[in-house]
């Protein structure tokens, strides 16, 4: 009885912490959307923001464009990511460890530089690929134009594949082979088994991650702004950005009112997801052993190997090569021998701002990632494993940060913490809090997905044999979760190290972050070479972190 009370207290405490982190800033935003001024400043109640946002027919055109963009992007990225994850986790394709590393790399490249890389490759007149196809292959006209709706879909899809792949490959690797073996014994071929058994079993993770990727794409504004503006293609991301960037004074109210549609859309999608998965439970890690079955592909394995290499060349090598080359040029874009320089890297070494930003990113990002994963593990345990009365509410609250685009969410947090009597603004502690808040949706999704795959029979068995809850958690659950915890820390660290839109307002003198410094330098026209060098450094740090995490057991270790 006493233990039960302690568990209840702990669960309630977790719920309170999560509710404070998310609901307080959200409440400030809602308040702001009905207020003529910033929250905390004298103003009046108003409905003008909603009337402006939804009384404009352009808003609906923007929604249509966005649906097309995000739908195409989510489907393309989802299918490619699933296929790649299956190849890496469930087949005998050669060099899988190396291939997995290569597939994940785009996840570590700052989004803005991916777009810049593709601009250099596919600009209509001077894009390297277009020039090659015109001058070497002999095409009359440039076949590609990156400044188009399909250009945005292309860049955003490639950027999402790695993100989805990480979720999918972990799920596929953690699956019980029993059902697949049964299918094979019943005469089903590898493809049929994959489609009828494997894929439905990881459906919760596929849907959850795709849903999250869908929402992230709604929020993204860097690529639509960079590629959509010249093509005069307007989507939700740059519409929100416009409210904040173009209106004078900044129209946070309008941005927030527009962001409210996120909330409605999210609830709708959440309902669809629940309906699709209703009554379906997929315990893919059971007490019966869960070594995944490896499908022998025969000679076809060289085709899957080539497919993975092809993806790496297209998604990573091509755009990243532009960034790497640009980092060694005195003038970005002038690819000539006499332009070569190490000056950009020298600036990185000697610039105290870069060093400060780097240290803050590693220390704050790392600490926040660990704390977030711990909190998310507790949340995931409560929502998937207990009968705690508020578990569904807790799950829903953790999704709410998705309801508001990052840039607006940042404003909500800024308002919230400014209003607190505790002087947190301008401190590294506040950055940790901000990171934890923005990390909750991904962290909880990741941990719930994995926790949902653990059959309760493992715990029940442990308890039946006299182990306490603590012993069971430490000796059974934690070891099983270790790869997922390490993967979670890495994914969150990378997310934090790339976060700009939410953190930019909290990055003051002394608390600078590398991604924010990179973004600020990118706004100075002549510093694209330095920005490229910084992007290369950031990518190297993140890839190193991934390799370390892998050694610690993240993503599992495919045998080669």
């Amino acid at each position, binding site marked *: 009885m006493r233990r039960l009370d302690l568990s209840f207290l702990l669960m309630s405490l977790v719920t309170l912490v999560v509710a404070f982190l998310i609901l307080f800033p959200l409440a400030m935003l809602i308040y702001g959307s009905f207020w003529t001024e*910033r929250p*905390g400043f004298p103003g009046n109640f108003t409905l003008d923001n909603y009337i402006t946002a939804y009384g404009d027919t352009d808003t609906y055109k923007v929604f249509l464009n966005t649906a097309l963009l995000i739908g195409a992007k989510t489907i393309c990225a989802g299918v490619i990511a699933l296929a790649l994850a299956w190849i890496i986790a469930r087949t005998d394709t050669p060099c899988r460890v190396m291939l997995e590393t290569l597939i994940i790399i785009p996840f570590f490249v700052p989004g803005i530089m991916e777009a*810049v890389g593709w*601009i*250099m490759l596919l*600009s*209509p*007149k*001077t894009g390297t690929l277009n020039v090659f196809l015109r001058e070497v292959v002999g095409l009359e006209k440039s076949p590609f134009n990156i*400044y188009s709706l399909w250009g945005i879909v292309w860049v955003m899809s490639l950027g999402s594949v790695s993100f989805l792949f990480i979720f999918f490959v972990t799920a596929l690797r953690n699956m019980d082979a029993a059902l697949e073996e049964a299918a094979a014994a019943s005469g089903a071929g590898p493809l049929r088994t994959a489609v009828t058994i494997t894929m439905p079993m990881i459906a919760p993770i596929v849907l959850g991650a795709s849903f999250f990727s869908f929402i992230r794409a709604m929020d993204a504004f860097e690529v639509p*702004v*960079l590629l959509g*503006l*010249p093509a*005069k293609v307007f989507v939700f991301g740059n519409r929100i950005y*416009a409210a904040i*960037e*173009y*209106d*004078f*004074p*900044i129209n946070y109210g309008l941005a927030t009112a527009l962001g409210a549609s996120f909330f409605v859309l999210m609830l709708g999608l959440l309902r669809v997801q629940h309906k699709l998965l209703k009554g379906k439970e997929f315990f893919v890690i059971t007490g019966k052993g869960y070594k995944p079955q490896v499908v022998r592909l025969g000679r076809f394995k060289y085709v899957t190997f080539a497919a993975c290499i092809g993806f790496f060349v297209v998604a990573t090598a091509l755009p990243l090569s532009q960034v790497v080359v*640009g980092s060694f040029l*005195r*003038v*970005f*874009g*002038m690819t000539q021998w*006499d*332009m070569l320089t190490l000056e950009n890297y020298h*600036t990185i070494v000697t*610039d105290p701002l870069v060093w400060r930003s780097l240290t803050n990113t590693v220390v704050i990002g790392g600490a926040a990632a660990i704390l977030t994963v711990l909190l998310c593990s507790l949340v995931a345990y409560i929502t998937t494993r207990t009968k705690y009365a508020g578990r569904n509410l807790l799950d829903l609250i953790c999704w709410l940060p998705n309801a508001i685009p990052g840039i607006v969410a940042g404003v909500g947090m*800024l308002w919230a913490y*400014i209003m607190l009597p505790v*002087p*947190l*603004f*301008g401190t590294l502690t506040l950055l940790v809090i901000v990171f934890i808040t923005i990390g909750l949706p991904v962290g909880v999704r990741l941990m719930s997905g994995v926790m949902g795959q653990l059959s309760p029979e493992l715990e029940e068995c442990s308890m039946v044999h006299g182990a306490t809850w603590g012993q069971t958690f430490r000796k059974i659950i934690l070891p099983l979760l270790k790869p997922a915890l390490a993967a979670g820390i890495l994914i969150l660290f990378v997310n934090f190290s790339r976060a700009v839109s939410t953190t*930019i*307002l909290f990055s*003051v*003198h*002394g608390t*600078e972050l590398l991604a924010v410094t990179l973004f*600020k330098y*990118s*706004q*100075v*026209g*002549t*510093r*694209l070479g330095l*920005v490229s060098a910084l992007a290369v450094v950031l990518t190297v740090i993140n890839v190193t972190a991934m390799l370390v995490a892998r050694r610690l057991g993240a993503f599992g270790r495919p045998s080669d």
Partner: protein
Amino acid sequence: MSIQSTISKAVGFLLLLWLVASSISPNPVDAADATAQLVAKSYEGAKKEGKLVIYGLGEPFLTPIATTFKKRYAGITIEAFDEPGAQSRERIIAEQKTSRLIGDIIIAGPTNHQMLTDLNYLEPFKTSQWANMIPELLPDIPNTNPLRASVFSVAINSKLIPPAEEPKVWADLLQSKFKGKMASDDPRGSGGGAGMIASLEKAFGVEYLHKLAAQDIFFSRDSGTILANLVRGEYSLFITASHDEIIAARKSGAPLKFLKPADGVRAAGNFQSIVKNAPHMNAAKLWVEWSTSEEGQQAFAKTGQAAARKGIKAGEPEADLTGVKLLPVVGGRQDMNLVKERTKRFETIFFKKN
């Protein structure tokens, strides 16, 4: 009335006039003394404070300017944070609201200073160098001081446009040979690109903008990719180029040329203010005094920035405004309130018509 009494009354009146006049405009020697006293007193206090935090100043300007400042005033470290003015403004609002004050000086465009003044977040301080500054580059916003000018005009890729083909006046941009070859900053909102297009509208009328829009301009908010694509030849002209970006690119070897059309360039004042209750108030006052002094302005000019003080020789040809006609600058409180309206108009002209 005797002549004597008339003369004595006239002398008395003139004496009174002299007294009044001298109380309004102090003797230059006294003014110099007062400035020297202010500087000496601020320096004493600044040495104890030890540092100064500036929002809105970054490399490549920061190091040479901070070095010159430090040579004159040892013991004060400048820590600067480079970012767009709107972000500095939001940061200061947050700092003031939480009373956790970090920044001392904000360097930004007029809209941001105006907003901070309206919120009463700026310290009343006026440089003693006011009378020595170029009148067109003085702010008309309370508690705001001049600092430098940004020059905006057309930049071209000189490999693609030979001298004979260069546009000589703004109307030349409407020639069919330039169609599809121009890039511009996004003209919506505030900022350099928007200010440039607004100046063109004021000088040549809205019809000019409609004709410009028909030239199929490439718009972007990212000047990095605009410059990269300009040097690669994706387009040949950048019609809202800022002089300091072109200087840096030219010095690095890019084939870029900053043109000054006969009918004018845009020179806009870039201002500075001391934040209310700045944590390093003495250092902040010392900085404003020094940065507007001859030595400070020369330090700015040497980095290629256009000085706001009279008689300072430009360090680079792009920043030299001698004999150059200036386009009307859209600024001041009334014009700023029209930014929203202007943004809608520019959106219709440039983004919805085509």
